[in-house]
């Protein structure tokens, strides 16, 4: 399986769409080497704005650019992109429903060494709670490119969460992508797993192991966490014995919460795999942290088995 760099895919696709659409501009807060807006800066310095380490200003400037007809891509680590300028996003961008794209890079626990201050466990929750805001977590490099491209057609603000870790390619050029559409990666009859981001691959691994035990699991990639496609949730819920959700995020307010909200009137058992209301911490590798916080194929397997 091909392992790819999502940040790099993002940076290169941003440059590609900027070449085609003169409205696209990029803003970064001293992290262009990490967020990979460096490609845009090198090729199109006039449409790249270094904003200094000043995320709040950066977001409001993006609002101004958007109100002047531009499509600004605002970039930083997810804690600093979604957390630091929260009210600038809320009032300046989401309330007027502007076409600002906020890129939360090095999301989740993927900046392992830097620890809790640099790891976002609640960014999906805060962004999801803001009216008008769409929330998208691309599953691989190919989907990252498609999200960037599709975002140009979307009306309203979008928060895009991108991991620092390399991830296996689960989709290809021909895979259909639409904002708000889920992707069934593997069929199954007993349990449906709704997963997002790095946990999608773990869900597929869990499915392999479970199938050897005679348990049949369907794996759905939910890259658009908001607006959540309720019809598809119902469709993939019908006929199975239970639901498992999996995300590299707090169990409070993320994908699991969104699915539970959608299914609250249904009589179906649901289990959530996520971070148990805790901050991150430093570690040598991302994998070590995923293991510690129970963001593993094994956790998914245990939840599935508990439902049967």
């Amino acid at each position: 399986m091909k392992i790819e760099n999502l940040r790099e895919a993002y940076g290169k696709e941003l440059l590609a769409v900027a070449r085609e659409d003169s409205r696209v501009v990029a803003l970064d807060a001293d992290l262009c080497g990490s967020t990979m807006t460096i490609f845009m800066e090198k090729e199109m310095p006039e449409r790249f704005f270094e904003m200094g380490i000043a995320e709040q200003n950066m977001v409001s400037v993006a609002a101004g650019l958007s109100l002047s007809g531009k499509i600004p891509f605002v970039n930083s680590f997810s804690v600093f992109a979604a957390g630091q300028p929260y009210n600038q996003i809320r009032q300046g961008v989401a309330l007027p429903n502007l076409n600002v794209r906020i890129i939360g890079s090095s999301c989740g626990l993927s900046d392992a060494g830097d620890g809790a201050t640099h790891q976002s466990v609640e960014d999906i929750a805060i962004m999801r709670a803001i009216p008008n805001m769409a929330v998208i977590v691309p599953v691989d490099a190919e989907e990252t490119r498609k999200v960037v491209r599709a975002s140009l057609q979307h009306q309203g603000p979008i928060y895009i969460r991108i991991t620092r870790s390399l991830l296996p390619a689960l989709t290809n050029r021909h895979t259909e992508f639409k904002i708000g559409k889920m992707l069934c990666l593997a069929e199954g009859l007993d349990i449906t797993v709704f997963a997002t981001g790095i946990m999608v691959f773990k869900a597929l691994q869990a499915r392999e192991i479970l199938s050897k035990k005679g348990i049949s699991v369907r794996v759905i990639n939910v890259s658009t966490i908001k607006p959540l496609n309720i019809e598809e949730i119902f469709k993939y819920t019908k006929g199975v014995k239970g639901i498992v959700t999996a995300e590299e995020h707090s169990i409070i307010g993320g994908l699991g919460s969104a699915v539970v909200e959608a299914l609250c009137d249904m009589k179906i058992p649901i289990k959530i795999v996520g971070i148990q209301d805790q901050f991150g911490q430093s570690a040598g590798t991302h994998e070590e942290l995923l293991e510690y916080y129970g963001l593993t194929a094994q956790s998914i397997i245990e939840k599935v088995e508990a439902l049967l």
Partner: protein
Amino acid sequence: MENNKIKELERKAKIIREGILDCIGIDKKGHLGGSMSSADLVTALYFYKMRINPENPDDPERDRFILSKGHSVLAQYAALSELGYFSKSELKRTKEFGSFLQGHPEVRTPGIEANTGSLGQGLSIGVGMALAAKLDSKNYRVYVILGDGELCEGQIWEAITCASFYNLDNLVAIVDYNQMQASGPIKERYNTGDIKAKFEAFGWKAWEIDGHNMTDIIVALDKTEQVKNFPSAIIAYTIKGKGVSFAENNYSFHNNSLTQEQYEQACKDIASI
């Protein structure tokens, strides 16, 4: 100041730089550049100026130090271990899973006064501590080290305004003015201009010094104690990566790992100071 006292502080600074290398080790990412540039300032605070007692880390009378540019915490870990807040053997475990030496400062680590790492917040926390000192009629002083890139954050300027409004003469901001941020030189990336003039315009007393000259540093720190009614700012001209030949003024070592060879070279460089 006697010459041998200065020599002793310079010797401590060398130990701090060795400690930074212990924290970084080989093939482990770490903020080498900003830690090395802060090393002399951190040394002067911990080994000359501040009234602290490692035996009693919570002494209510102690001076407070906040590393607002929290990523340079390796310098602080080195200083705290040299002072005996925890064992030196811990340094090698910095940023490893389960270590209490996290990637950024946390109050659970002995000797650390505030959680920082998200840039821009440390000076405001310092304002809070300085206000508390006034409220409680205590004489402790509060020292905050800031990054020059960090000065872009609007909150810093909110804190600067607040400190002068409340006449916080027990608060000292020290800018590690290495003229580099993560993505390159501030002059090319995002220049915050004449820092000294800005602090003064906001009602602070401000000095510019050589942040690697121990005499300069301690003279400036002493001066801040003479100021009444105004907060003090020291703009310390430094070199990012100071002491490690290949990392000096090289922003690619803002947060990077060292190969075995680079690590050995760095150790040699520091040994020859």
